[in-house]
């Protein structure tokens, strides 16, 4: 298993043929999508519920509060610039007043768990 990209979208599966003294041979590789459907592990589900309860206790209903709306889909730009990604990089440059800001989208902290408002 290998890391692939970010946001837990895929698990990488790679099979190598490794023999001492020989060149390592790539047999196959694939990206296995991580989906939230399917059977759930009860122990993990209980841990998640504990964390959710702790969050609710700490922040109450404020996390679900709608503070604005946008006609634009505010999504990160995995495959090109978006209104939101350009806003984020301009914001970082504005606060530091540097000549430029350079990043790849997945190096920012903009991880969405629901992409539409």
């Amino acid at each position: 298993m290998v890391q692939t990209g970010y946001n837990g979208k895929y698990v990488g599966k790679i099979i190598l043929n490794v023999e001492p003294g020989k060149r390592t041979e790539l047999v196959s590789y694939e990206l296995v999508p991580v989906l939230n459907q399917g059977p759930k592990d009860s122990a993990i589900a209980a841990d998640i519920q504990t964390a959710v309860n702790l969050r609710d206790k700490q922040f109450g209903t404020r996390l679900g509060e709608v503070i604005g709306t946008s006609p634009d889909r505010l999504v990160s730009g995995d495959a090109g610039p978006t209104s939101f990604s350009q806003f984020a990089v301009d914001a970082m440059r504005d606060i530091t007043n540097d000549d430029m800001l350079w990043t790849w989208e997945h190096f920012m902290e903009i991880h969405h768990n629901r992409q539409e408002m």
Partner: protein
Amino acid sequence: MEMYPRKFEVDQNEGLYIYEATIPGILIKLGLKYITRFGTYVALSGVTYDIQKMSDKDFQKAKNGYGDSVDANIMSPYFPDNIKVNGEPLGLFTWYSLAAPESLVRGAMALSPLMHLVIHRNHPTPHTIWDAMNAYLLKIGKIQHVEPLRGPISLVTRNSHSATPS
């Protein structure tokens, strides 16, 4: 939309910090050349450039430089041109101040000690990305619409919206 901050440390609840560093213009040019050639999308602020297409002869020559590697198969005939920083032409031997997410700078420095030769004086600022977005939204009041790239340039290069095909 819901977001959560990315972080390195367990108690880093405000998310990643913005780092600053100083880099030479030639590194910017090489970086743009790489992302244009191999179609990686990079998010930029303060930098603009045009995208030019090389001739078939030059493209074949460039491909030959990669031999029979995967790179030769995925490279594109595009390259950056007319690179400007804050509206001024890029100076290859000029040093520029760069802001970048903590993860990018710390990750780059961890790749090799040689990175210190090209990324100078890197250090964290007191600002998190979260802080920056909050302050900037209060400042500008409204997130400006950015039209996504369309056509072959968007498919091949997927670069900054400030890049324009010529």
